[in-house]
């Protein structure tokens, strides 16, 4: 009960920050608000019993993401977004899509329901056999590195590809060649 209240309070704070990001025009303010949003997201994930994920979100979202966005903001030398004339079309589309997705989630299991299907098939097996088969008490690490090792190989390759993509986009030649 108290878990649900904590998560609900954190979600309400994140919703407030989301509305502030939508309305804020100063780009520096937008980035700082996004850093605060990431911290709240990390806290919510910790409240949902996911310390690995919370640590990663705090380090990546509130640390590296904010630094990269501030660096990019310095390079584009723009401080304010232009004011937008209020068009009603996007708002209608977004509300429509939101209603449809909410209708879609009505069939999902309730919060903290032990009978829901995701607790039935593979997860109990990982929780019971994980320590015996891999010798690693942290089941998330065991699943990530051993049971689902291929996925982690793919993810490392995605990070590598992003790295060389940014190198290809932003590398400077040493000579005075004109930039294409």
């Amino acid at each position, binding site marked *: 009960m108290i878990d649900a209240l904590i998560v609900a309070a954190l979600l309400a704070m*994140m919703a407030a920050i989301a509305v502030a990001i939508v309305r804020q025009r100063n780009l520096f303010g937008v980035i700082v608000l996004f850093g605060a949003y990431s911290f709240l997201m990390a806290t919510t994930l910790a409240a949902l019993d996911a310390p690995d994920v919370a640590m990663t979100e705090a380090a990546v979202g509130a640390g590296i993401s904010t630094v990269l966005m501030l660096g990019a903001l310095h390079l584009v030398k723009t401080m304010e977004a232009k004011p937008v004339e209020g068009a009603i079309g996007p708002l209608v589309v977004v509300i429509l899509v939101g209603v449809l997705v909410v209708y879609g989630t009505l069939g999902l299991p309730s919060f903290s329901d032990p009978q829901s299907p995701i607790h039935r098939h593979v997860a109990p097996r990982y929780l019971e056999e994980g320590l015996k088969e891999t010798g690693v008490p942290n089941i998330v690490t065991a699943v990530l590195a051993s049971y689902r090792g291929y996925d982690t190989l793919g993810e490392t390759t995605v990070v590598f590809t992003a790295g060389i993509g940014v190198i290809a986009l932003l590398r400077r030649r040493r000579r005075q060649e004109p930039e294409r």
Partner: protein
Amino acid sequence: MNVAGHFAYWGAIFLMMAGLYIVIARNNLVKKLVGLAMFQTSVYILYVAPGKLSGGTSPIIAEGVTVYSNPLPHVLILTAIVVGVATLALGLALVVRIREAYDTIEEDEILQADAEVERKQAE
């Protein structure tokens, strides 16, 4: 309409829709990227919330604990977070190059400049 059971999903959907609104309704490219990042991060709650069990604890095997929260969504979301920052970095690199080429990062001005170039080429 089980509010007490579904509030986590609805909160995540509200954040998702806020991010989607920023992406489709705002012209500034950096703000669009922030909206996209908000869209991506809201999905994490949508995935991790069903895995939580009341009275449970994090899925690290320890003495005297009987109920563990589900570890599978955590694995998926760990991958999703890192992939999200990778795409954000690529998007920001593209915005930097666009700024150097067009001298603006507002989408309508960029589209106008492209239309002008096409018109001149058609003549």
